[in-house]
């Protein structure tokens, strides 16, 4: 089983993930339409690119936009959650050992202690994000079962990884395989679910950035004050 989930299934998961996000990018760009979107993308590409980069950059920096400053607590939660979510799996020592073994390359790694802290941060911030959904009426009204499912898909690799690493819950092998499986499910879910915001965040921000950069003022001022 371990051989299967770290072998053929891993191949499938990574293929679906990489091909999936490339397809999403291509479909997104092909679906842009200057007249329907009312943005002259091509004739003013320079302004468009400037607007797109500004629109992405400011939103990637905590407290750099009015919205991030307005919702301070949420901003901390969102950044902690996403930093842990992305950096932990990529730079984890154990993952890179497997990478080296199977595919002959690896990334720099972080210490096990850092990885553990990041994992705990993801789990705690994830649970607060869930509580927030239930506690705040303006979020509760939006929340659907699908949102919870997507949340669970993202959280599962961290909870199971934590259990396996700390040899909790008895059977190490069981948690390890569950961890690998849940990670692969997450990878494969990215192109097909709301988790596609992994890449579509950038596409959508780019589009709105171009809109403001080209049409809504960007050619007459320094750029939108996000």
């Amino acid at each position, binding site marked *: 089983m371990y051989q299967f989930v770290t072998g053929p299934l891993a191949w499938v998961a990574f293929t679906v993930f990489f091909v999936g996000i490339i397809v999403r990018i291509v479909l997104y760009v092909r679906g842009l339409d200057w007249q*329907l979107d009312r943005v002259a993308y091509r004739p003013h590409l320079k302004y468009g690119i400037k607007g797109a980069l500004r629109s992405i950059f400011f939103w990637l920096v905590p407290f750099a936009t*009015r*919205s991030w400053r307005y919702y301070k607590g949420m901003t901390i939660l969102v950044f902690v959650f996403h930093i842990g979510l992305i950096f932990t799996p990529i730079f984890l020592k154990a993952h890179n050992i497997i990478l080296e073994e199977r595919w002959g390359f690896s990334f720099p790694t972080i210490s096990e202690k850092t990885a553990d802290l990041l994992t705990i941060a993801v789990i705690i911030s994830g649970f607060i994000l869930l509580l927030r959904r239930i506690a705040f009426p*303006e979020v509760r009204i*939006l929340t659907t079962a699908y949102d919870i499912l997507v949340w669970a898909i993202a959280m599962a690799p961290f909870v199971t990884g934590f259990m396996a690493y700390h040899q909790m819950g008895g059977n190490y092998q069981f948690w390890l395989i569950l961890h690998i499986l849940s990670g692969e499910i997450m990878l494969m879910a990215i192109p097909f679910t709301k988790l596609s915001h992994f890449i*579509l965040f950038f*596409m959508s*921000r780019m589009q709105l950035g171009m809109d403001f950069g080209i049409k809504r003022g960007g050619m007459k*001022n320094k750029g939108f004050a996000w």
Partner: protein
Amino acid sequence: MPEGILCNKIPCKTKEMLNALLSDKSGKQYYQEMNYLQIDTEALAATIKKTFKSRMKTWLEICAHCGLCADSCFLYLANNKDPKQVPSYKIQSTLGQIVRRKGDVDNAFMQMCMDVAWSKCTCCNRCGSFCPFGIDMGVMFGYLRGLCFSQGFVPWELKIGSGMHRIFNAQMDVTTEDWVETCEWMAEEYSEEWPGLKIPVDVENADIMYTVNAREPKHYPEDLAEAAILFHIAGENWTVPSEGWEETSLAMFAGDWEACKIQVNSVYDAMRRLKPKRMVVTECGHAYRATVIEGPYWAGLKDGKTPVPSFHYVEWVAEALRTGKLKIDPSKRIKEPVTYQDSCNYIRNAGLADCAREIMSYIAEDFREMSPCREHNFCCGGGGGFNGLGRYREQRNIGLKIKRDQILATEAKLVIAPCHNCWDAIRDLEEIFKVGIRWSFLKPLLLKMVVVPEHLKPLEE
């Protein structure tokens, strides 16, 4: 397929139809007929398939339902944080459903969509600047309005309004003769006080082609005179077109894209006919948005630009003050605290916040910014057609509370509002809440403080 006599899927294209609609007081019969209007689900599905593409599709799909758009919406705040006013909820429960059901919706649902699209969103686009994913719900509500319009679900006043554009190329029944006569009348009326004052009609190759909001010739012709006097003092070589002088677009508020195109083409034709160096638009927000920002796309102009460079009135004023074409008498600057209403349409959605500040630096001694301001200012409460819809009067009045509180917090008693919709909304909020404020366009204020060159003054008897 049952269609009402007044309420149907056919846009108003004839004077007979227009008169029939106008004689139906408050749209009583119109809204009754709406209850029997059937949905052409196939047409709706076909439109979605053809026009609902990756930008909006992605917006609806990836919305994380995080609720960060909630506090960006003045209607959510004004309605005691009613969760049903959260922008994401409003769009997911309307457009989101239409898309998910592939257009298979019923009459009651479409009426609900109409009510939400015109009474719970003014298309101010503030939510778009609060969403981390850049989901602009104002844009989607504009699209939803178009779907509603195509099925005949549009507020009575806006069916009339878009009909006016189709028939008169103006939002009101102002004909070419009416317009030209008003220009002549105003020039004559003020000629004693301003010798040599002209409102030149149809002059080719002028530096500026000036265009207006039909309300000005119809209801406030002195606004046109004030514009003429300021151009006169500034020594501008300007003209107005006899046709294609109307910048506004109730068709845009209605979601009648065909009428939008007809309207802006009338202005673009005037530009091509008169070949001015540039066009300047009066103090109106949505007019600028419609004709300068969105219009080129309706007309199919691929570079997204109007045939000649186009400017909002605040851009012209800022330039005239900067270059000294207009000089302000320092002793006549506004001494009392004064604030400025940033219009969503030309500030947030067209980037002219700095022009407004530049003007204020010349004319005001105690300028107080609202909070928030500039790109992040709240809608006046009457945008997107909201001011003019009888069916939603009560909802509009509730929404005005936010602007009232913003103004009161500045402690200024004078609000400068270079936008017809904002001006109306602020007038109405004073009428309703009686908070003791005054409001004004720029033109009358500038006229009171501008230095008049000796040679333009009337000769002493």
